[in-house]
């Protein structure tokens, strides 16, 4: 009965075009980045006997639909994944088909984060030449207009909040600071304030660092440094950003991420002076979170060799270099970090921002990598977003919220393992 159910589910998945097309030499690659299509086109040109189809999907599709597709035995052959380790049980081990030493050398950090608990310690599941990073965008024009000096590198979150408030007041800018409604962004602040988030046993940790970060975050909302529109106005784990506010000069400091550089390049250019600053510091660290999407192949693919060949092709230095230049991304592959990447289409300000991000890659704290590669990172992020919003709306106090975050994550882990 169950095998029939499985067959039916797989057939349905195929019918709704989420599975690979028929034929042994065809695979589907999906990503949220349109520029991946150029690599797919180059591969198809170089391999006329094979056919790789590209599918552009939304970020929500990667997070919400892909897990269900994979659980039902369907889905694309290769996809970008944002939940690096949460879907690890579906990843194909590419070792038999690719140059393992090359992958290990270029993507060592990423490979460790992609491996499932029961996978071989040398398993190779995917690649990414680029990394995204959280980061704070500052409107330098507003600072100049206010006649206030920008805090120097090494300045704390408090320094920046104070400066942003003063600039907003002096220039009548509606908001001093904004932070994406994402626990991934909040994790940077939490780690800066000493939160460990995940311990060596892979358990979630609620400590004084996390509580201090929540208190600070709530205080910024109470005193108007942060508006309620993002974290306060929405419920649950809903992701929301208001980056348009930064692009329209309605906010002095916006804590978002490197993925906004492409928009800044295309839509803002040099209309006003802006910069990505060094990570603001807390008492414990000056932390930014790594993130982004890794490209992985899935076990259910009918063409593992072709999937592996495509990923090996995408992992070639020249192809990664082209992708990075197109997307204005931060290099992560070892060779690219060493040799640097040129961004011919990027404006001077975007290049400056990329240099700022790249400079900060080596100082990403281990806690940030540990959290990013943790299997239950999504559960923790959902819990943090939900509970912090409740504190902002006076439904919970900070201690109760911290206890609920811990409980939510533990229950999620327990339910998954039960």
């Amino acid at each position, binding site marked *: 009965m*169950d095998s029939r159910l499985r067959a039916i589910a797989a057939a349905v998945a195929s019918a709704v075009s989420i599975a690979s097309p028929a034929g042994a030499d065809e695979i589907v690659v999906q990503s949220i980045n349109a520029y991946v299509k150029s690599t797919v086109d180059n591969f198809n040109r170089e391999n006329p006997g094979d056919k790789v189809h590209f599918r552009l999907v939304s970020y929500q599709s990667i997070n919400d639909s892909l897990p269900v597709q994979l659980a039902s035995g369907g889905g694309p052959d290769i996809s970008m994944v944002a939940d690096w380790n*949460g879907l690890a049980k579906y990843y194909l081990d590419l070792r038999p088909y690719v140059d393992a030493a090359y992958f290990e050398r270029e993507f060592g950090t990423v490979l460790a984060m992609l491996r499932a608990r029961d996978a071989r310690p040398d398993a190779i599941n995917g690649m990414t030449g680029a990394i995204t990073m959280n980061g704070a965008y500052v409107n330098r024009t507003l600072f100049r207009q206010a006649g206030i000096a920008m805090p120097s590198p090494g300045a704390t979150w408090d320094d920046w909040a104070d400066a942003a408030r003063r600039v907003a007041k002096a220039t009548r800018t509606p908001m001093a600071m904004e932070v994406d409604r994402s626990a991934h962004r909040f994790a940077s602040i939490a780690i800066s304030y000493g939160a460990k988030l995940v311990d060596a046993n892979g358990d979630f940790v609620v400590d004084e660092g996390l509580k201090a970060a929540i208190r600070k975050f709530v205080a910024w909302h109470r005193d108007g440094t942060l508006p309620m529109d993002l974290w*306060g106005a929405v419920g*649950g784990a809903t992701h929301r950003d208001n980056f348009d506010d930064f692009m329209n000069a309605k906010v002095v400091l916006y804590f978002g991420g490197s993925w906004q550089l492409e928009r800044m390049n295309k839509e803002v250019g040099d209309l006003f002076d802006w910069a990505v600053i060094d990570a603001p510091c807390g008492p414990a660290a000056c932390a930014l979170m790594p993130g982004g999407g890794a490209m992985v192949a899935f076990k259910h693919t009918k063409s593992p060799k072709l999937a592996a060949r495509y990923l090996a092709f995408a992992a070639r230095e020249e192809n990664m270099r082209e992708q990075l230049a197109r997307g204005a991304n931060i290099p992560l592959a070892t060779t690219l970090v060493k040799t640097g990447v040129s961004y011919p289409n990027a404006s001077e300000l975007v290049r400056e921002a990329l240099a700022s991000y790249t400079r900060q890659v080596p100082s990403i704290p281990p806690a940030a990598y540990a959290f990013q590669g943790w299997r239950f990172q999504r559960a923790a992020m*959902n819990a943090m977003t939900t509970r912090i919003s409740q504190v902002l709306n006076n439904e919970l106090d900070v201690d109760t919220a911290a206890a609920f975050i811990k409980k939510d994550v533990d229950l999620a882990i327990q*339910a998954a*393992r039960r």
Partner: protein
Amino acid sequence: MKGFEEKAMGVLSAIASLPARAVEPLMVLLQRVLGVGRLPWVFLLPNLTVILFFSVLPILINVLYSVTGSDNLYPSERHFVGLANYATLLECGDYLDPSTCSRDLFWRAVRNALVFVPSQVVVMIGFALVTAIALNRRIHARGFFRGIFFFPVMLSPVVVAMTWVWLLQRDGALNGVLGAFGLDRLSWLSDPARAFKWSIFVTVWAHMGFYTIILLAGLQSIPADIYEAAKMDRASPWRVFSRITLPLLKPVLLVVFILCTIRSVQTFDEIYVLTGGGPGTATKMIVHYIYETGFAVMPRNYGLAAAASLMLGVVLFLFTALQMKLSRKGQDA
């Protein structure tokens, strides 16, 4: 000419009766084999099959998920956990304080629903009734106004919600109007009480037309001579409404009440887009909790979501049964 018509009708009748004649031997055979009493089941079979596959089977699968655990999708990869999912949902120190519950968000959603559903149903039926009565009168451009009130029903819930988001957001049209008059902007959706009221308003705006049409049909089915008799007796408008319209509209009102209540409990899409269940959990509804638990957060907890949906289903079933019983009682009286 008459002869031609009769001939034509004869030919058409013969053609129309062909399918019946063709299946007649089969029917006779089935009647002989199954007996007269069982033959109706043959006619019901297509509908029963559809109901079995699209209603009964999903419910059974839901039951199966609710008594199994893990984040795996296939039943064979899930473990039997008995009633553990139900116990988790019901585990509460004090049901009046959701913070003491194991799944506090579920109970916050229940608490919200207990306020949202009666409020929305009363406002919805009240406005729908007033609108239906107004549209039943001989007013100018009656057809146009009927169309206007029904128009939101044809829109996708997401479109409805997005439209209202654009109106109500910080830089939305409503704040733009306030700003134009030199007034302070208001946070329409970031204040819990305001967001809750707007959730009721938007859902009423979106669905009122549907119930208005049903009530309008009910009003039009009331015989005109009763109103004429009341007019001759010089009955006041309120007396006409309370003694004629309302009692004769009662069966239709009951249907509207049941439909509206069920729909209200199931509210999800508009509010999900409008507020995401926030601020905090101020507008989180039960179906939103089920969706988040089963499909939006990682790891997926299909078992808990299935248990919550079945509990909701049972409550709705009991509620509908009660309403039907009251309805029959009213008709008998």
